[in-house]
C-alpha cells in the first residue's frame, strides 16, 4: 500500500450556492491533482474525497465526521457557518481548520484558536481594507466624515462578521453606517434597494455570497444605483456574481483576496497543460483561472504547503498527522521565491504564520468588472493592525473566557 495523505474536500456543487461553489471546488481539486502529477508531497501521493455540504451546517458536520474517520488531517469547511460548528470539534479531534478568507475573524489569534487558520485574511481585514480604499478615493480617511456607507449583508454569521470593524471605523471617522440585512439566500432585495435609493449612501458594501450578489447587482441596475460605488467582499467579486448581469454590472468593484482572475498565471498554465490537456481536468476548461477557481487552488495550495512544511520537521516522505499538519500551518514560510516556484508569481504575496498570527498575510487589492472580465484597480492595501489587533485580542479573550480556555503558553508554541 502506497503512502497517501488524505485531503477531505468539502464542496457544494448543488443547491443555491452551487454556481459559486463549483468553480472553487474545481480549482481545489485540480490543484491536488497537479500536486500528484508533479510527484506528490515529497513522494507521498494525495488522495482526496469530495463531500457535498450544500453550504448547510448540519450536512457539513456530517461530512466532517465522515471524512475525519477516513483519516483527514486538515479541513477547509468552505462556509463560515460550518466553521463555527467545527471550531468546537477540531481541538477535540486534533485536526486543523483552514478557513482562507472566511470563518471567525478572531481566530486570527493563534493564542486562543490553536486549530483555526484563517490564512490570507479575515473578514475584519477585508472590511478594514475596503474602508481604507474608499477613504483614499475620497482623498483621505478624514474625508469620510459625514458620508454614508450602506452594508448590504447576508443575514448569517458570515454577513455579520464585518460589522464590528465597520462600526469601529465609523466611530473613528464619523461616517454613518446603514445596515441592511438580506435574508438568505438573497433572492428578494427590492426593499433593500428602495431604501438605498432613498437614503443615497455614498458607498454600498456588499457582503454577499451566491445568488445574493447577482441579485444585488440587478436591483442596483433597476433602482439606478451606480455600480461604481459598490464594493463587494472578496466572495462577491467573481464571475458568477456578474456573469448574467453582464454589461450592466460594469464598474462594480470588489475586494480581491490578493489574487484576481489570472488565467495567465504559471500555475494555471501548468494545470491546463498537465491536466486539462490530458483530459484529466475538473470542470470546464474555460473556467480555469477564474476568480473562484483561483481561490480554490490557492486554498488547496495552502493545505498542501502546510503538509510539506510539517514534513520538513517530522520527516519528508511521511504521511503527516493532524497535529503535525497543524504545526506546519503554524510555521508556514512561503516566501516569494517559493511562491514563484509553485507558479503563483503575480498571484499572491508571501505568507508566514506564527503561533500568535494565524493569518500570515493580510493583503487586499480591489478589482473591478469591466463588463467582460475582472481587472485590478487598486494598489495593495493592508488592514490597519493598530485597529484590528486589539479587537481580535478582545474577541479571542472573550471566547476563551466563555470556553474556559487558557491562552497558549510560549512552550505550547514550540510543539
Amino acid at each position, binding site marked *: 500500500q502506497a503512502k497517501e495523505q488524505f485531503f477531505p474536500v468539502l464542496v457544494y456543487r*448543488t443547491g443555491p450556492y452551487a454556481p459559486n461553489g463549483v468553480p472553487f471546488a474545481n480549482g481545489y481539486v485540480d490543484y491536488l491533482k497537479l500536486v500528484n502529477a508533479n510527484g506528490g508531497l515529497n513522494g507521498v501521493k494525495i488522495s482526496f474525497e*469530495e463531500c457535498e455540504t450544500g453550504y448547510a451546517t*448540519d450536512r457539513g*458536520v456530517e461530512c466532517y465526521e465522515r471524512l475525519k474517520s477516513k483519516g483527514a488531517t486538515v479541513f477547509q469547511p468552505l462556509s463560515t457557518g460550518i466553521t*463555527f460548528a467545527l471550531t*468546537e470539534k477540531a481541538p477535540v479531534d486534533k485536526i486543523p481548520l483552514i478557513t482562507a478568507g472566511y470563518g*471567525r475573524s478572531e481566530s486570527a489569534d493563534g493564542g486562543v484558536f490553536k486549530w483555526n487558520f484563517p490564512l490570507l485574511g479575515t473578514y475584519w481585514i477585508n472590511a478594514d481594507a475596503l474602508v481604507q480604499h474608499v477613504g483614499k478615493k475620497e482623498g483621505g480617511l478624514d474625508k469620510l466624515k459625514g458620508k454614508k456607507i450602506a452594508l448590504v449583508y447576508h443575514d448569517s*454569521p458570515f454577513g455579520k462578521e464585518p460589522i*464590528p470593524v465597520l462600526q469601529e471605523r465609523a466611530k473613528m471617522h464619523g461616517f454613518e453606517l446603514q445596515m441592511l*440585512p438580506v435574508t438568505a439566500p438573497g433572492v428578494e432585495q427590492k426593499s433593500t434597494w428602495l431604501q438605498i435609493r432613498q437614503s443615497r449612501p455614498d458607498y454600498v458594501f456588499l457582503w454577499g455570497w451566491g445568488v445574493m450578489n447577482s441579485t444585488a447587482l440587478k436591483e442596483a441596475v433597476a433602482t439606478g444605483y451606480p455600480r461604481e460605488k459598490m464594493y463587494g467582499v472578496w466572495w462577491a467579486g467573481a464571475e458568477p456574481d456578474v456573469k448574467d448581469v453582464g454589461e450592466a454590472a460594469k464598474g462594480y468593484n470588489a475586494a480581491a483576496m490578493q489574487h484576481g482572475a489570472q488565467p495567465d498565471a504559471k500555475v494555471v498554465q501548468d494545470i491546463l497543460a498537465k491536466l486539462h490537456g490530458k483530459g484529466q481536468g475538473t470542470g470546464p476548461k474555460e473556467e480555469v483561472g477564474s476568480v473562484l477557481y483561483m481561490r480554490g487552488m490557492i486554498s488547496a495550495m495552502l493545505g498542501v504547503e502546510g503538509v510539506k512544511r510539517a514534513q520538513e520537521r517530522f520527516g519528508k516522505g511521511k504521511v503527516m498527522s493532524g497535529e503535525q499538519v497543524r504545526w506546519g500551518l503554524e510555521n508556514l514560510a512561503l516566501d516569494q521565491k517559493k511562491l514563484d516556484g509553485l507558479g503563483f508569481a503575480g498571484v499572491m504575496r508571501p505568507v508566514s504564520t506564527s503561533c500568535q498570527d494565524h493569518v500570515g498575510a493580510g493583503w487586499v487589492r480591489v478589482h473591478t468588472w469591466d463588463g467582460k472580465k475582472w481587472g485590478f484597480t487598486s494598489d495593495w492595501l493592508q488592514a490597519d493592525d493598530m485597529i484590528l489587533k486589539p479587537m481580535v485580542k478582545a474577541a479571542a479573550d472573550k471566547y476563551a473566557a466563555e470556553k474556559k480556555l487558557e491562552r497558549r503558553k510560549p512552550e505550547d508554541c514550540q510543539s
Partner: protein
Amino acid sequence: MLYRENGQFKTSYASDQQIFPIAQDRLGILLLVAFAAVVVPMVASEYIFRAILIPFLILSLAALGLNILVGYCGQISLGTGGFMAVGAYAAYNFFVRIEGMPVVPALLLGGVCATVVGVLFGIPSLRIKGLYLAVATLAAQFFIDWSFLRIKWFTNDSASGSVSVSGLQVLGLPIDTPAAKYLFCLAFLCVFGLMAKNLVRGNVGREWMAMRDMDVAASVIGIRPVQAKLSAFAVSSFIVGVAGGLWGFVHLGSWEPAAFSIDRSFQLLFMIIIGGLGSIMGSFFGAAFIVILPILLNQIPAWLGVPISTATASHLEYMIFGALIVFFLIVEPHGLARLWSIAKEKLRLWPFPH
C-alpha cells in the same frame, strides 16, 4: 419464536391496556432498548455515533413531538424549527447566564420556554385550519428565526449571532465522548417516548385524535377545543423544544439560527408523514428514513467504487430519494409504521393467507 397472538388471553382490562399487548412485542422492545443501550455503544464507530445515531435520536425526539401535534391532533405546523430554536436558545441562556446551572434542568427549562411560545402561536389554530394553518405557522418560524438573528440579548451579545456551549456534564459525569452523548440522547428519547405513548393512549390522546378526526363531533361530546388543541401545542412544543436544546448542546455544540431554519421544519414534517402520522413508532421510522437514507445514498457510489462526480452523485441522491418517497407512499400512504404493522399482521396470519 413464532409471532402469534393466539392463546394470549387478556384477563383484565389493565392487561389489555398495556402498551404492547402482545408478549412478543414486549420482548422485542425490551431487546431493542437493551441493544441500543448496551450493544450499540460498544460496537458503533465514532462516525456512526456523531453523524448518524445522535442526529437520528434527536430528530426522532423532535419528530415525536411534532407527531403529537400533527399526527394526533391534526394541526399541521411548519414552525417546528422555530420551536426547536426557542428550546435551544432558551436552554443556552439558562445555561450560561445562571451560574452552575446543570444541563438537564437547562434543557427542560428550554422546553418550558418553547411550550410558552408554542401555545402562543397555537392560538390561531382555534380558528384557522388545515393547510391554512400550516402556512400561517410559518409566521412563527420566520419570526423566531429573525428574533434570534436580530435580538442580541438572546445570543448573549455574540457579534455573529452564533453561540456555543461546552463542558456538559450530568451528575459529574462529562458528556463528551460520542457514546456518552448518544446515551444521553437515548435516555431522553426513551423517557419522552414512553410518556408520549402514555399520553396518546389515554384520555388526552383521545381528545386530540377526536379533534383531528372531526372537531364538531368532538365538541358535541364535550371535548373543549381550546383545551385539546392548546394542550397538544404545549406538549408538542415542549418535546420539540427539548429536542432543539439537545440538537444545539449535544449535536452541534455551536450553532446559529440557520440550524433551525425552515428546512428543519419541513424535514421534520416529512419525517412524520413518511413515518406515519399518528404513530409514535412512525416518528422513529420517519427520522431514520430521512436522516439515514440520504447519507447512505450519498455513500453508495463510493462503496460501489463507481467514479461519478460529487455533483452527479448528489443529484442522483436527490432523484433516488424523491423517487423512494413516492414509492413508499404508493405502497402505503399511511407511512412506514403502517407498512410495518401490515407486515406484522401478515406474519401473524402466516402461513394461512388472509
